[in-house]
């Protein structure tokens, strides 16, 4: 016997060691020491062999597999022999029950030893329990710590559980899938073979599929596994850490056990199981092959890291020591430093690739399991009977809602219900109608019980909760659905405590299906949104969770604080690219996404796809601008950025629609110097959050063909713009009957200058070219602005003053300025500011756009009026921000409702005070700013008139 060599015969050597001890204590010490020594030698030898055998490429994986198998076999043998001898020492003499000790964990995992102990339940079990207790203490000192998960979760007292106790416990309710997996994976180490055979027959078989008998336990186990897989796959991989078990090993183990129980594969060991499944399901062979490779790789990384570094499940990549440890792992696995790339970095690249592939394969293997559950579920007969009765117009023998709840009692805690929800959602099977009908016929007490029952169920699985509420909410126009939605949602929300685990579960659902969370928030009422928001606002731990929670909170805040106008933009993004919702709150990321969408729009070949991508670009940017406004960014900054977006949108839309029309006509028509698209109104002034766009399509030639051609382009553009909730307005279309206005017609219209065309002059004066050439811009300036508007300076200014005064008089007659809350048209409102800028633009023959920056330009040109222009600039900023925030929080209307100003005020930084609520203070500020506008306007008009 050579103590520094791996034993050829562990059993023999252990016996020799035991014989050399003089008493029990010394024997235990020597045995423990021998175990520890062999443990080291076994692992060192295995790693040495791994280092020797690793090669490049395909072969590597099989070397890893052999390494893991060898290590697992050696370790398993060592543990078995150690346990045998410990029991021999502790159980000598006296009565003992018939018993069996099983290994119930993964053979390769050495961080603990998962043991399951079965006995005959006789009174003699006390001695056995005492011996196991001593054995555990000894193992804890010299080897890996034993873990008795099964005993803790199935047994009542002690380490041992009898088969009868197992059976009783399993008849009561479903066992959690972790326990079941341990039960199914049990491999005898020491003890009665007969007991093991009974255990297999009476306990194992409950979880295998048998078409001829009830599948309740099998179904419950599969649901447990599917729920586990979903929760692991839905949560994105962490960025700064790796966690092999979470990342891949658990999902793989779970999916393989699902297949093992479905197909009746009873052989132990992951690789053997994979091979059997692969032989049985030939169409999934390639998926299983790739799964096996990824599993082997990740398991090897985990095992070696535990050997070299620490028994940690989460490996922090930001830590230098950890990286040094990973370097050792990488080198053992055959990786080398290459140039500036360290071996561990290579390893991590491959690790992430294997995790990605492995997870994808697990996902691909899930649908057959889901279909199997649908086929064998205990809910099937219940549903089929009810639907058949409904089809025949017969009364239900059993109330469906109560029946479902009763059947669910056994499955308490299970999280996978996608199959049942899919049936509820299936329009071919009116299950939801039947469910709602059956709830409607219940008396108040039974109805209450049903609602509470479903709410309890919902609280166990949030994805099911939200999905069910969404399904009911989609039909909230029906009174029965609206009532049920309100009751069920209220009961569900009242069960929330806002603890970090709950927040994590909600964040997981959000990451998995942001569209569903958005839809949930859409179908429920304001108060529910607020409660949901509060439930998410508690403390959370960990950067990863914090990041996703914050993004979910941003979505929720849009629903709580935002107007439908804003929420609809989010809805449009969600409809096209729901994954973008995951980036809410990250304005920079949204910016990148939007740019990507714009690039995508120009790259795609079909005009329809191009328009969709371009529309999404606009919508994402709209949401980004809205969030920036919510975050308190300066209106000028938001407006300027969003105006550029609108310009890009229009430019590109014009190009796409033009190409589309060209394609239909079979030839391309050049419009470069002959057509100009101008924006006017709010968009031209650089205002975000418009609900319509004033467009002017100017044709600089008089050919009928081009007129008709441009008109078709405009028609295409209009259709697209309207889909974004914007109404394109062509003011001159009213005059000329075409979307497109020939410039010569415009020249004719504008001569002579007269009150009747003042509005048209204003539109043109505020116009800004978005599509066109330098030549069209010059021609517009020379033929329209300079010759027909700037030259009519006196007329225009006088007409603008008349317009302003007549509007003031009209509105005054309707109720006085202090009752007028139309932010645009009221005295001292945005229209006055616009008219004033137009007057000064004409006065100075300025080419500057009529945006907030124009006040600065005027300040420079007229320093003697600096105070007035600066005051107007500030007032303009305030009024525009008020308008923007009101649009985003209340509605895209100009008339402000004082009762609805609360959220607007909060976002604008007004706080409630004892003497005045924030909304009232905002209203007061609104009037104060208008007074400033009125005073300055009067002063500036006087100056212009002079």
């Amino acid at each position: 016997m050579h103590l520094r060599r791996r034993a050829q015969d562990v059993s023999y050597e252990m016996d020799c060691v035991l014989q050399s001890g003089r008493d029990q204590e010394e024997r235990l010490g020597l045995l423990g020491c021998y175990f520890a020594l062999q443990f080291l030698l076994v692992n060192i030898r295995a790693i040495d062999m791994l280092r020797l055998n690793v090669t490049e490429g395909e072969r590597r994986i099989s070397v890893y597999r052999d390494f893991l198998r060898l290590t697992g076999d050696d370790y398993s043998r060592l543990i078995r022999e150690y346990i045998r001898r410990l029991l021999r020492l502790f159980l000598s003499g006296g009565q003992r029950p018939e018993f069996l000790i099983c290994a119930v964990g993964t053979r390769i995992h050495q961080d603990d030893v998962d043991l399951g102990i079965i006995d005959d339940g006789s009174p003699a079990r006390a001695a056995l329990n005492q011996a196991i207790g001593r054995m555990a203490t000894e193992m804890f000192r010299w080897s890996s710590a034993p873990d008795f998960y099964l005993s803790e979760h199935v047994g009542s007292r002690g380490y041992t559980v009898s088969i009868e106790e197992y059976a009783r416990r399993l008849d009561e309710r479903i066992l959690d899938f972790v326990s079941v997996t341990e039960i199914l994976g049990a491999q005898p180490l020491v003890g009665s073979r007969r007991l093991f055979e009974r255990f297999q027959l009476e306990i194992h078989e409950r979880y295998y599929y048998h078409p001829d008998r009830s599948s309740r336990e099998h179904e419950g186990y599969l649901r447990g596994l599917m729920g586990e897989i979903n929760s692991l796959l839905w949560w994105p991989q962490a960025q700064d850490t790796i966690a092999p078990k979470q990342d891949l090993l658990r999902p793989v183990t779970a999916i393989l056990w699902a297949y093992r129980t479905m197909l009746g594969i009873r052989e132990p060991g992951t690789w053997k199981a994979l091979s059997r499944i692969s032989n049985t399901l030939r169409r999934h062979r390639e998926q299983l092959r790739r799964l096996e490779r990824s599993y082997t790789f990740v398991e090897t990384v985990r095992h070696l890291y535990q050997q070299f570094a620490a028994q940690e499940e989460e490996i922090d990549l930001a830590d230098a020591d950890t990286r040094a440890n990973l370097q050792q792992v990488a080198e053992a696995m055959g990786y080398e430093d290459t140039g500036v790339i360290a071996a561990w970095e290579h390893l991590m690249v491959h690790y992430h690739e294997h995790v990605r592939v492995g997870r994808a394969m697990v996902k691909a293997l899930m649908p057959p399991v889901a279909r199997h559950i649908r086929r064998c579920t205990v809910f099937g007969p219940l549903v089929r009977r009810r639907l058949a009765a409904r089809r025949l117009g017969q009364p239900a023998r059993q109330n469906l809602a109560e029946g479902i709840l009763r059947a669910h009692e056994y499955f308490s805690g299970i999280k996978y219900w996608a199959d049942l929800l899919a049936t509820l959602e299936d329009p071919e099977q009116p299950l939801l109608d039947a469910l709602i009908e059956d709830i409607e016929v219940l008396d108040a007490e039974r109805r209450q019980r049903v609602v509470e029952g479903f709410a309890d169920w919902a609280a166990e699985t949030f994805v099911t909760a939200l999905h069910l509420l969404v399904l009911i909410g989609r039909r909230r126009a029906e009174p029965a659905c609206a009532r049920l939605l309100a009751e069920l949602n209220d009961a569900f929300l009242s069960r929330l405590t806002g603890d970090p685990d709950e927040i994590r579960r909600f964040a997981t659902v959000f990451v998995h299906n942001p569209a569903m969370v958005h839809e949930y928030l859409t179908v429920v009422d304001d108060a529910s949104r607020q409660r949901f928001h509060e439930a998410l606002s508690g403390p959370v731990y960990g950067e990863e969770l914090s990041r996703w929670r914050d993004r979910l909170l941003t979505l929720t805040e849009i629903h709580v604080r935002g107007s439908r106008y804003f929420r609809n933009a989010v809805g449009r993004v969600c409809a096209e690219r729901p994954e973008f919702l995951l980036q809410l709150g990250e304005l920079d990321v949204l910016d990148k996404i939007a740019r990507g969408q714009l690039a995508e729009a120009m790259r795609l070949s079909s005009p329809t796809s191009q328009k969709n991508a371009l529309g999404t670009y606009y919508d994402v940017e709209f949401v980004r601008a809205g969030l920036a406004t919510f975050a308190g960014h300066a209106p000028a900054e938001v407006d300027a950025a969003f105006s550029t977006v609108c310009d890009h949108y229009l430019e590109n839309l014009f190009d796409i629609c033009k190409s589309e029309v060209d394609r239909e006509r079979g030839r391309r028509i050049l419009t470069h110097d002959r057509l100009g698209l101008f924006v006017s109104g709010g968009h031209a002034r650089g205002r975000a959050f418009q609900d319509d766009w004033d467009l002017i399509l100017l044709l600089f030639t008089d050919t009928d063909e081009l007129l008709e051609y441009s008109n078709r382009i405009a028609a295409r553009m209009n259709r697209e713009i309207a889909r974004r909730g914007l109404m394109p307005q062509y003011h001159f279309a009213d005059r000329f009957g075409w979307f497109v206005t020939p410039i010569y017609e415009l020249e004719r219209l504008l001569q002579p200058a007269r009150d009747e065309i003042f509005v048209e002059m204003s539109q043109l004066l505020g116009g800004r070219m978005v599509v066109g050439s330098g030549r069209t811009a010059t021609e517009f300036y020379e033929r329209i602005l300079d010759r027909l508007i700037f030259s009519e300076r006196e007329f225009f200014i006088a007409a603008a003053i008349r317009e302003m005064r007549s509007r003031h008089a009209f509105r005054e007659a309707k109720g006085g300025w202090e009752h007028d809350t139309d932010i645009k048209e009221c005295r001292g409102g945005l229209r006055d500011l616009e008219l004033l800028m137009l007057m000064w633009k004409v006065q100075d023959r300025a080419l500057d756009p009529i945006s907030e920056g124009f006040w600065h330009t005027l300040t420079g040109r007229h320093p003697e009026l600096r105070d007035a222009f600066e005051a107007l600039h500030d007032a303009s900023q305030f009024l525009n921000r008020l308008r923007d925030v009101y649009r985003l929080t209340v509605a895209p209307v100009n008339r402000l409702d004082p009762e609805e100003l609360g959220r607007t005020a909060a976002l604008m930084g007004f706080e409630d005070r004892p003497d005045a609520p924030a909304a009232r203070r905002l209203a007061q500020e609104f009037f104060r700013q208008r007074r400033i506008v009125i005073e300055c306007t009067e002063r500036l008009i006087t100056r212009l008139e002079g």
Partner: protein
Amino acid sequence: MSFHYEIRLSGEGGQGLVLAGKILAEAAAIYDGINATQSQSYGPEARGGASRSEVILSDEDIDFPKAQNLDLLLALTKESCDKYVRDIKPGGLLLVDEDAVENVPEGQFQIWRIPMIRLAREKLGKPIVANMIALGVITHAAGVVSEEAVRNAILARVPKGTEKINIEAFDLGVSLAKEMAARSKA
């Protein structure tokens, strides 16, 4: 079969006709996937007098933006009725506010007289929602845009807290239109 439907909503500034037009067009374009254009008269608030909003609905491209042969004209004032009645095409529908428009001009079109402003005041307590009653009547009468789409568009446009009354007004309009249609058939 393709369709092309032209609607003009007319009255005076402040009656919410532009908003009603936008809602109808949005309902068609966004929720029902029908092509729609909407245009409006400019600056009516400043001068009072006739205000109008036009909506054209079609399942084909709308090349011509101006409503010329109206399938439906809504007139909430006498002045607007007189001004636009000649644009209704034969077989079209003239919808007038019964109290505001007396002596409705006759023509080759149907006439529905409904006291929309009074009903808004008496049944809903807010004359300002007369535009939503009108929208309900128009939606049912035109039969081009679905009621559900219009309800969605209303909810998207009106301020929070006013959804209920606006939807009630719309539903009232739909039921009035149903009555009128039944009466016309009879």
